[in-house]
């Protein structure tokens, strides 16, 4: 068996003062990180703290603007993913990058198949794949098995085997347990322990503090693209870690907002006992007219799934959705839209926009019958209303004939919101409305959301950014693992308290 040649405790990687900027965002603003051979080094931080960018710098996908990377005490450049692999850094992305139709062995050696004169040496490939799977403690997975037929845990192992096939000395694992069941997690941890015993270093990213305590050796905490705590022991108290992560500087000032004080209990949305097997269970909440209700939680906690089920895009297994006193037909988007519900979905480009078509076509998409007489489109009114809407939302340039593709992320999001404004919906569901939106456009979107609520629209907001949920909402629901944990007025919650609830394995302080 081939052993990586790391000396235990040897400093493998040092990063200092790493800076990476994108237009409008300083994603990394002075990150320091030191990784030693044979350790599990955990990276902690909220969404937007810079973890993903840091991983991309480490794996060679992004080049840092400033700062120094040293590998085995020599300056190093990870100029491409391939260069990083050759140096010995392999990355297991959260979304596994496997080819489902190929076999285990083919996936492990994808892109660097052993060959002679251009002919793949299939026998050798299989033998080496078998050996790798044995090393990972799973000799029962045959190298010839199609990867698409394996469980999530099995695919994870193939991904790890691929990293090992490169003789990786440092493996980056981005939330490797997100898709795993409890017993599979145990196996993963055993494998990680074996690897580190052989001297391989692991950079481990997870939101589950409990896991970090189980397998982590040291912890580095990121906030606002900066290292705020480094080389902490894995048993650092939760409160200390949460304190380091919270108090993020939010570049955007949330507009002041009069708390919704209407005594009238005109309930727009009532969700009762909503359940979808494997996604969320027994979710109940209400939203009143003019109220903004935020749902906080990690990705995978079931937030987007709840929104899409309320909207009818997913069929509920149990429970009811009532809008303006009328129960919605289960699993029917058409019924939800007819009842006055609008959704700005999480994946703007793939779920909401006709990118190649004019803004006007996108804006009126949900209100086609209202813009027609006897089935014939009223194009003049379409353009007039679209233009008015674009001017109101300050979309530049306010040209309804322009293709949506040519606008920035923030403006594209405005187009989606405009669609539901034109529809005059009474309940607006916003799923990660500021994702991929730069700081300036964010502030405008926040203002717009407040304006909508002030005009009586009920808003449900899902966001991975805790400050955003707290800053925008009247009331906050916290979700974890498909369950509604808490419901409280936003001004009674702190960022630290929400973070603490959101992350598994930490004690609830409320």
């Amino acid at each position, binding site marked *: 068996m081939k052993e990586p040649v790391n000396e235990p405790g040897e400093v493998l990687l040092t990063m200092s003062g790493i800076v990476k900027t*994108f*237009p*409008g*965002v300083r*994603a*990394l603003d002075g990150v320091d990180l030191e990784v030693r051979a044979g350790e599990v080094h955990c990276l902690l931080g909220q*969404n*937007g*703290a*810079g973890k*993903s*960018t840091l991983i*991309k710098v480490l794996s060679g996908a992004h080049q840092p603007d400033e700062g120094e990377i040293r590998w085995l005490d020599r300056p190093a450049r990870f100029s491409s993913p391939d260069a990083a692999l050759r140096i010995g850094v392999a990355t297991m992305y959260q979304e596994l990058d496997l080819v489902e139709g190929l076999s285990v062995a083919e996936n492990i050696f994808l892109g660097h198949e052993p060959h002679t004169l251009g002919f793949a040496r299939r026998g050798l490939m299989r033998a080496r794949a078998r050996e790798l799977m044995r090393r990972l403690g799973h000799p029962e997975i045959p190298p010839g098995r199609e990867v698409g037929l394996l469980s999530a845990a099995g695919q994870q192992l193939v991904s790890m085997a691929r990293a090992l096939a490169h003789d990786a000395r440092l493996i980056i694992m*981005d*939330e490797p347990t997100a898709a795993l069941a409890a017993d599979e997690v145990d196996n993963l941890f055993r494998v990680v322990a074996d690897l580190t015993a052989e001297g391989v270093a692991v950079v481990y990213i997870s939101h589950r503090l409990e896991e970090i305590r189980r397998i982590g050796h040291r912890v580095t905490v990121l906030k606002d693209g900066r290292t705020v705590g480094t080389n902490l022991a894995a048993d650092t108290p939760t409160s200390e870690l949460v304190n380091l992560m919270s108090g993020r500087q939010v570049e955007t000032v949330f507009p002041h907002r009069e708390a919704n004080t209407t005594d009238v209990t005109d309930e727009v949305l009532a969700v009762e006992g909503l359940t979808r097997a494997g996604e969320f269970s027994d979710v109940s909440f209400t939203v009143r007219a003019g109220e903004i209700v935020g749902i906080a939680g990690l*990705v995978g906690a079931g937030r987007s799934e709840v929104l899409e089920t309320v909207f009818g*895009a997913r069929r509920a297994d149990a429970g009811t959705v009532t809008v303006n006193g009328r129960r919605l037909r289960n699993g029917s*988007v058409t019924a*939800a*839209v*007819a009842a006055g519900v609008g*959704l700005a*979905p999480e994946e703007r480009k*793939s*779920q*909401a*926009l*006709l*990118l*190649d*078509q004019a803004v*006007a*076509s996108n804006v009126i*998409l*949900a209100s*086609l*019958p209202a*813009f*027609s007489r006897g*089935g*014939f*489109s009223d*194009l*003049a009114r379409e353009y007039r209303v679209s233009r008015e809407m674009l001017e109101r939302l300050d979309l530049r340039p306010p040209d309804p*004939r*322009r*293709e949506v*593709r*040519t*606008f*920035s*992320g*923030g403006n*594209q999001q405005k187009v989606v919101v405009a*669609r539901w404004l034109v529809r005059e919906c009474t309940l607006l569901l916003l799923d990660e409305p500021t*994702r*991929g*939106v*730069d700081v300036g456009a964010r502030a405008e979107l926040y203002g717009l959301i407040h304006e909508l609520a002030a005009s009586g629209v009920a808003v449900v907001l899902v966001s*991975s950014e805790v400050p955003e949920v707290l800053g925008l909402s009247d009331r906050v629901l916290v979700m974890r693992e498909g369950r509604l944990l808490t419901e409280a007025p936003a001004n009674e919650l702190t960022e630290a308290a929400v973070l603490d609830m959101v992350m598994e394995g930490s004690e609830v302080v409320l």
Partner: protein
Amino acid sequence: MSDVGEKASPAEETEREAAPAQPMAASGRFRVDIRLASLLGVLVVLCAVGYFLKPDSFLSESNVSSMLRLAAAIGVVSVGMTFVIIAAGIDLSVGSMVALASVWMTTYATQEMGMFVMVLCALAVGLGAGLVNGVLIAYGRVVPFIATLAMYASARGLAERLSNRETQTVSVTSYNEFFRGDILGIPVLIWMLAVVFAIGWVVLNRTTFGRRTFAIGGNAEAARLAGINVKLHTALVYGIAGLCCGIAAIMVVARTTSGSSTNGMFYELDAIAAVVIGGTLLSGGRGTLIGTLIGVLIFTVVNSIFTQNNLQTDVQNIAKGVIIIVAVLLQYGTTRNRKT
């Protein structure tokens, strides 16, 4: 996971100094569309070549009229195909549906009931077969390529069974007189193409139905999440394609005064070629009927040039292939500034 990596995406989607947006087909204002203009240019050049080779006969009234009458049936089929392809689908069964409708409307039993029943029969058979395609695709979740491939085989098979592979001559004189005749000096077949094309254009560009067709082809998930009944609409679009095949069958039967299971051979390929040449994207969401019409006319003119100059069909087929590639490359050239 939406981490800073997500925030970074403005880097890729920042506002480009974008090329002027493609004028929507429904812009309601005349705008010069480079792609259509270049297509029209190709058509004019081909006509000039035809005229140069046969100055006496090429642009004569009889040749133009016969060219258009030949183009009529495939033109009507291409209108339906344009709807399907804009909705991001494909229909391989159009030729077989034309054959089936042409046979069914010319059986002894149908002919005995007269001209109107014959016409209704063709329309019903076409619409019915198209809806079968549509329901299989929309509600049965069969991939369009496969569903219409099955119809491609079975509709022609059914046509062969109905006709015993014999040519069924039309003996209803009122039918022959009307559909082979002229109105205001223009053949009825050409009127039919013009009317179908005009209705198709209005439906596609001026009605909510057309807008939904573009929306579904552009992004079916977005259309669904905007409250559009995507399944029903998809089924109807294939129904339209079938209905167009029924109309085309009426025209083919009129031209040949007979119904046969060999009618409509290779219509699917000619129609798809015309639609693609016309600038409609096979991936859906974009396209124009005017482009399709020009595409059909380009093929018709090429055919006429070859027959007038007594050239073999093999050369003709090679030329067709070359034209498809040249026309599509020309369009890529004019749209290259758009980053996709």
